[in-house]
Every structure is written in structure tokens, then in C-alpha cells.
């Protein structure tokens, strides 16, 4: 189990390495070969990197939107499972309902973490985040709705009344047929 850790963690590290510039100041000590104009190359280089950065930002934004939309599939899946589980209270339906409640909650707790890889000055993450939150809230609502259809939410008068003790009586009367 522990051996799989490294594989999972290093999945996206190549994106960070990309920004590394090989034109280190140390290379400037050596004079440029004749006919080589650094300025033009520098110009060229910066244009390329800007282009690259834009592409990256676009890509990040796109990815963020994808990640934000991911719960939607989950939502559909959950809906199908719930429909399969029926509306009677038993182990399966309770399990599904609680997982349907737990998943959005844990996802909402980790909103920041999910979008961290796409954090960029140029990328506006607010939209994807809002969508993500909205979809997860939708999932939560679905779970609550399922809980309600199972009759496990105190939304009816019966849930509040059934434990009320009988009202006291003011009068007391006793008697019967004489002994």
C-alpha cells in the first residue's frame, strides 16, 4: 500500500518544471559566438514563453472547468443509485444515502485543494469554484431529498408530535358499580 504513494503524488509535476529557463546568468560569462545577436533571441524567447504561458493558462482554466464539472457525473450516478435503492429503509438504501451526503460534504471541505494545481494569476478560478460548489450542493440536496423520502427527516408533524406526552386532565372522576 505504501509503495503506491510516490506514483500518485508525482503525477503533475512536469508542468512546474516547464517554466525553468536554461538561460542562466552563468552562461553570460562566456562571450557570444560571432554573428549571434542575443537580443533577437531574447525577444524571440520571451514571445515564445509568453505564448506558452498563455496556452498553459488556457489549459489550466480548461482543466479547472473540467474539474468543476466532474461532480455532475457523480450526481447522475448517485441519482441512479438512489433510484435503484428504493424508498424503504434498509442497509443498502441507508448506505447509499449516507455516501451521497458524505461525498459532497467532503468535496466542499476540500474545494481549495482541488483547485490548487490550477492556481494562476491569469486564471480566474472563481467560476469553476462556484460551479463545483453548486454541483456539490446539488449532490447534497439530492442526498437530503433521499433522506426525506426515506422518512428519516423530521419534516412532518408526526415526527414532532409522536413523543409528546398526553395532555394532563383537569378533572378527575372515579366510581362505578357499588361494591
Amino acid at each position, binding site marked *: 500500500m505504501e509503495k503506491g504513494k510516490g506514483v500518485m503524488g508525482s503525477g503533475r509535476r512536469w508542468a512546474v518544471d516547464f517554466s525553468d529557463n536554461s538561460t542562466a546568468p552563468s552562461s553570460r560569462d562566456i562571450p557570444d559566438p560571432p554573428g549571434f545577436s542575443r537580443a533577437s533571441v531574447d525577444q524571440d524567447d520571451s514571445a515564445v514563453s509568453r505564448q506558452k504561458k498563455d496556452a498553459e493558462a488556457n489549459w489550466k482554466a480548461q482543466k479547472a472547468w473540467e474539474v468543476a464539472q466532474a461532480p455532475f457525473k457523480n450526481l447522475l450516478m448517485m441519482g441512479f443509485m438512489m433510484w435503484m435503492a428504493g424508498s424503504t429503509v434498509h442497509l443498502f438504501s441507508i448506505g447509499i444515502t449516507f455516501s451521497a451526503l458524505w461525498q459532497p460534504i467532503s468535496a466542499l471541505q476540500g474545494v481549495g485543494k482541488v483547485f490548487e494545481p490550477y492556481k494562476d494569476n491569469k486564471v480566474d478560478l472563481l467560476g469553476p469554484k462556484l460551479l463545483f460548489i453548486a454541483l456539490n450542493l446539488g449532490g447534497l440536496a439530492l442526498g437530503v431529498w433521499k433522506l426525506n423520502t426515506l422518512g428519516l427527516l423530521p419534516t412532518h408533524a408526526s415526527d*414532532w*408530535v409522536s413523543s409528546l406526552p398526553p395532555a*394532563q386532565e*383537569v*378533572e378527575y372522576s372515579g366510581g*362505578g358499580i357499588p361494591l
Partner: protein
Amino acid sequence: MAIRSFLFLPLLFFSSLNPILSLYEDQVGLMDWHQQYIGKVKQAVFHTQKTGRKRVVVSTEENVIASLDLRHGEIFWRHVLATNDVIDGIDIAIGKYVITLSSGGSILRAWNLPDGQMVWESSLQGPKHSKSLLLVPTNLKVDKDNVVIVFTNGRLHAVSSNDGEVLWKKDFEAESLDDQQVIQPPGSDLVYVVGFAASSQFEMYQINARNGELLKHESAAFSGGFLGEVSLVSSETLVALDSTGSILLTISFHNGKISFQRTPISNLVEDSLGPAVITPSSVTGIFSLKVNAITVFIRVIGEGKLEVLEKTNHKTAVSDALSISEGKQAFALIQHAGSEIRLTVKTADDWDGNLLKESIKMDQQRGLVHKVFINNYIRTDRSYGFRVLIVMEDHSLLLLQQGEIVWSREDGLASIVDVTTSELPVEKDGVSVAKVEHNLFEWLKGHMLKLKGTLMLASPEDMVAIQSMRLKSSEKSKMTRDHNGFRKLLIVLTRAGKLFALHTGDGRIVWSHLLQSLHKPQVCQHLIGLNLYQWQVPHHHAMDENPSVLVVGRCGPSLDAPGVLSFVDTYTGKELSSLSLVHSVAQVIPLPYTDSTEQRLHLLIDADQRAHLYPKTPEAIGIFQREFSNIYWYSVEDDNGIIKGHALKSKCTCEVADEFCFDSRELWSVVFPSESEKIIATVTRKLNEVVHTQAKVIADQDVMYKYLSRNLLFVATVAPKASGEIGSVTPEESWFVAYLIDTVTGRILHRVTHHGSQGPVHAVFSENWVVYHYFNLRAHRYEMSVIEIYDQSRADDKDVWKLVLGKHNLTSPISSYSRPEVITKSQSYFFTHSLKAIAVTSTAKGITSKQLLIGTIGDQVLALDKRFLDPRRSVNPTQAEKEEGIIPLTDSLPIIPQSYVTHAFRVEGLQGIVTVPAKLESTTLVFAHGVDLFFTQLAPSRTYDSLTEDFSYALLLITIAALVAAIFVTWILSERKELQEKWR
């Protein structure tokens, strides 16, 4: 709170899916016990002639014929006859049949002596009602048949004892004969019938015993008239009293000539004031007479001369004569002297020579000796020994032999009139009340055996040991309170006026107390109408106060006879105090208030409709004054068909100032038209019933509010014509009306008429429903109906937000005067059995679903789920209704053989079923009483809150240990593997 309710509901739902409550064979006797009794013995016949098992055949006031083992007092066999089949006489014929005459002399039966099987039965009819007499002559034969002579219904019968055939009969129809004796002088073929006619005529008939031919008829008039019993002193002499009870008549009819001899009683007893009473006995030449508490023994010498043998003011009982040898008769005499009884056996011709004189120490709680039966045996030295069977005041039966009590039977328990329960003492540190404590070794041994049993390693002997260990578990018969509330004391009051405390664990008698203070002649002459109430039930002072009960009785048959009270401590059985009241007691109303010592306030209503408050303390009056205007009472006059409601008015306006006495005024009355309705049954809710909730949740989470008033009275009336037996009227002229009446305001909440139906009506009222049982004449079947009553005025209180925020008035006190609008739902079903009693289970918090306990005609108790009597049942319930647990409607209620609570036992002569909640919510204790007693625990929705008795703790422990071991082993293995991998 909501969480609790929605955790509970599915739980109850699952547990109630299976209503069957059967138990396994090896569970019998674990939680239940059954005791067999016979009742107060009326007549006893010994059968000891032959070698083999010596027995005594008895008939009792509870209509039981039984054959008892003379050695131990156990029942060999027993038959309980119906209540209208009263036994008039028993005897043993030709040494092998027990002959019984019953049902007012119209049924003669013979039972096989060894096993009690019925051999034959004859129905003896006659022209008119008369006293019935049974005579089994020893050697009177008609055509080789031994004959039984029966005088019944104005006709003399001779019945063959072999097959019950009537050989001849002789009518005494023409003469209005009040028969007194049938005499068959031994060795002759004659039968004498003597009696009175027209109250002043003495009649004597001499009849040929072979063919019933009337040989002689003589009569003589006596102007004084006759009174009461006669005593036969010889085969041709009788002793009787004149109508004033002051002159003794010796009547002899020697050779058909009747002669009277008058002797004023004052000649015999100097200070004779009251009327005398002859105690019938069969001792030749001697009879006894009771004149105001003095017993006089008188011998008749020759021609009507009387001689006083002994006068005694001790309480005395005399047996019948026993012929011990040719012409020699012995009889037993028992006299009380302090805490002892003196038994003397005398011969008839020698008063002073005693064959036997013994004195035996007698338990004071048994009271006086009421009846004596004597029997003899031959000792090893060929002299006569005597054994005596005595019946005591508390209806117990004892056998005395050689100055000792050989055995005793507590047959007073066959006639229980009232039952209540009491908690046991709390277990105190240092003071162990438990008598039997297991030591550690035995405890371990027991658990090892049990473990072997669960692992199926036990041998058959071990299994027997396990079973006996389960049955005799000392845990259930401890004398202290248990955590689950299974151990309690059942306080029962018998008709004899004796209190018994029975332990619920094993049914043993913890203590018994004869209410002597109520029986004393100066206090009370005829104590009747006994009732039992819980007087003090300490909860807060449970450690230092003992609970007590109140016994209320009345001294006489009329309603205005003064009452008596007695307070008895239920831990010790000691009488705390007794009161003889100046006022009468018509009703006892326990009030729902207790004082600081937790004594319950009781209101005693006297015949003049004045209310008396007890206990008579200033504190009680303070509590009472606070609630004064809210206390009402009602009276049901079933003879007049009136129900009246009363309120308390003011302090009594009587001569003696009494601040505990209150006048009452009539508030309302419900008068039933006497030509069309007659009250046959009234039922109310039990005072101590606990209801968990006021709402009933129905399908789709809807709510109905129960109408939970304690002041509801169910009244059943029938057409006066139809108050007789079932089938005595046609369906057209018979109806039965059920009412629900509020006893505070007199408002009739519901009325329903069942046309073509008839009583007897048995009903039970609980929570907001009443279930009743009656006979449907049109369908020729018994029916059970249910009425549920709901509060419609609260039906709109369904706003969830109001309920969440607590802005509702559902728990505020309600008054009957607010006239809440109610609706009722009802339904009827056919039911196979006729009923003897009906009750409902009650639990500590009222959460567990209810079961009806039905005492069937077969003397068994059947548990029937209340769900079968649900007015919302329909033929095709919707899915939601099915989920709610509604059973599809059927026309009759099912009888599931496994749900007989009494399983294989019968509670003979079943009279009442009492249910008591245990502390454990799922469980209720059931006590059924009649001639027999039966006790068990019931869990109407299974024991959902505790592990069952047969749960194996050992197996659980073993499983846990095995799991822990497995965890360790796998951990070690995985460590090793990891190390190897790292080395690679």
C-alpha cells in the same frame, strides 16, 4: 426526542412483523409457573380399605371433584365442573366408582376411582325443585345391581351403580314435601323418606327399596312449625327445632308411628338467649347444638329423653361418624385452645372414654377449624389409629395423624377475589436478603456447563443438569428487587379474607395473613365485599419505608352496613392498623394524589353519598382542598339503569363534626329506558395505565390525535328480554348498545347499537380504544368489536414550524368541559371462542405494542395482537398502509395455536387476568387466576431491549478472544513478510 422516536418506530415495526410468541419445550417453567388447587372442601370420602394407594375424594365449593393422595396431599385427578353445575353430594359406590350428584340434583355421574374417567352419567328429572339428597347404601341390591338412592326434584330414584340406569322412581309430586332425610336402615330393604310439608306437618314415607313401592305413609302435625336443619340421631329418630328456635323436638317414627317429644332449650342450657342452631351430624344418639357461641352436646336416651353431655364455649367442630367395628361408631371432635387445637376421638356410646387425645400446634393464620373428616387405619399392633382431615377458616386443607400435620394445602388460593402487586425490598449493602447465594466455584461450574451446551459438547446428563439449573435459578426467586423488575410480590386476597404474598419468580407463598381483626365477631359479623387497593408505594423513600395495601370490607349484605379497613405491610405481612368505620362503604375511589409519605389519598363514598377522605391527616386534607373542585365521582345503578355523576359540595352537615367528610351534589344522570335497555357491563381504563404518546402516526406521516381521557366509561346495555342465556330470544327482539360516556360531564361521546346481538359482554378499555365481545344471534357466532376514539379538535395542529418552536397547546391541561369534538372508528370481527375474561398487556412506558389477553372457555389464555383489532383495516390496504403494519381485513380473527400464553396448561375455572408492567419496557407480567394460578412474562413485541435468556455470553467471549488472537497472528505474519521484502 424526534431522533428517539424515529429510531424506535422501525424497531417496533420489525419486531412486530411476526406476532407468534411460541416458546420451545425446554423454556417451559423458566419464566412461568402453574399451581393447581381445589378450593374449600365441602365433603370428603376416604378410600383406604384396599392395599395400594390411599386416597381421599373431595368435593369443593369451587365445584371441583378431586382425588388426593393421602400420603402427600397431591392431586391424583381432578375435575372442575361448570359454575352452574354445583355439586350436592359425593360418595363412593362398590369400591370403584365416585358418585357425584350435581346441578341441583339433576345430574348423577360416576367416575372411575383410580383415574377419574367418567363411567356413566344420568340425568334425573323431576316435577318440582327440592333439596337433593344422595344416599349410597353399602349392600342394598336390586337384581344383583348395587343401588344408589337419590332424592331430587320431588322424586325418589334408585339408580344402578354399574351403568347409571334408573331402576325405579317414585314421585312425591302431589304432596308439597320439603324433604329432609332419606334413611336406609342397614340390612333392611326399606327406605324412609322424611320431611316437612306445609311447614308444620311432619311426613314419613316407607318405601320398598327393591321396586319403589310405597309401603306406608304417616304424617303428624306440629303446631309450632319447624326451623332449619334436622339431625338424625338413629335410624328411626330425628331431632329438629321449632320455628322459634327455642324448643327442641325429638321425632321418632318407630314402626311407622310418629311421636313428638318437646324439650325447651332453656331446660338444657340455662343462659340461652339467642336462637339455637342444630349442627347436622350422623353420630348415633348424639347431636350438637349451638346457642350463642356455646356448643352443647346432647345425647338422646330412649324415648325422647335428652341428656347434656358437655357444654363448651370453645370453638368446636365435629366430624361425621365412622363405624370402626360391629355396632361401634367413632367421631372426631376438634376444639380450639389458644394457639393449639385439641383433637379427641370418642365413641358414640361412651362420651368420657377417649380413643385418642392429641393437641397440635396450629398456625394462627389459619383461623378456626370449619370441617372435620375422620378416617381410621389399623396400626401394626392391631389397634386403631385415626387420621383426620380438617378444613380451616382460610379454606386450607390439612391432614393430621399421630399428633402432627402430615401435609397441608393452601386451597384458599382457589378463590382469589382481588390482586395487586408490590415491589420487593431494595437490596441493601451489607444486609443480604437473598437466602441462596452461589459461591464462586458453583458459578464457574454452571457457566462451563452452559458453554458445553452451546458448543454442543454436552452429554445427555449434562443437558439434564443444565435444564434443572435453568429452572432452579436462584436469581429469579431472590427476595430483592431486580434491575428488570421481573421479581415482584403478587398480593392476593382470597374469599376467606386471607392475604397471600406470592413471589413472581417461583410462585411460592412469602407470607400469608388472615385478616382476623376484620373477622372478630364484635367488629364484623359477615364480612363481604372485600377489595384490595395499593395504599402506599414508596419511590423516594424506598429504602426506609415499606409499601402497604389497603383491604376494604363490608360487615353485612346490605349497602349501609358499616365498613372495615385494614392496612397491611407488604414486605412482612403484618397488619399495621385496622379501622372499623362508622359509615358504610359503597365505593372506594383511589385519587391520583399522594401525600409526602407517598400514601395514596382515597375517597370512600358511603350509602348516603357522602365522601370520606383517607388518610385522615391535615396534610391529606390540604392536598384534597387544592383539588377539591376538580374531583368528581359517578355511580352506576345497574338495577335501575341509571348512571349518575356527582361533584363534591361542602363539609358534611352531620351531628358529629368531621372535617374529612364531604357532602356531594348530583350533577348529571343518564337514565336508560328500562323497557328497552338494561346495563350489563361497565368498563373504565386502569388508573395506573401509562400512555406514551397522544398521537397516532398513520400512513404518509399523517397524525391522528387520540382522545386520551381517563374519565371515559364504557357501558353495555341489552334488551331486558335478551339478558338471559344465549339463544333465549329471537334476533328481532334482541339488541345490544355500547356507549362511551364522559364521567365528568355526563356527555355521551359515542353510541352504537348492535341489532340481533346479545350478551354476555366482556370488554377491555385501554388508551383510546375499547374492545368488546358479544354474541351475534343472526350470524350464530361470537363477535368482537373495537371502537377507537380520536380528538378531532386537535386535528389541525399539524404545522411543523409551530411544533418545532413549541408554539402549540398539545400538552396544556385539558378539561372535559371544553367539549372536544371527537370522531370514532369502529370495526367488528367474528371470533370463535366464548370468553371468560379479557385483559390487555401493560408496559412501563406504554411504547410497546399491545396484545389482548383472552381467557377462553377452555380455561386458557390467548394472546391476540391489537393490530388484528384495528378499525383502519381494509380488504386491500395501500402500500403505505401495509408498511404501517395494517393487516388486510378478514371477517374473523385468527387463532394462532402458538400464541396461547398458557401453552400446555389450563387455568381451571379461569376468573381473571391481571397484567403488571415490568421495569423493562418490552416485558409485561401476566397473572391468571381461577381455581388454578398461572404466571408468566410476555413480550408483545419480542424482547427488543434485552438479550434473551438463552443468549450465550460464553460464545460471545470466545468469539472476541478468537478475533483478538487472529489480529495478533496476522500482525506478526505481516511484519515478518515486510522484513523479508526489505532484505530483498
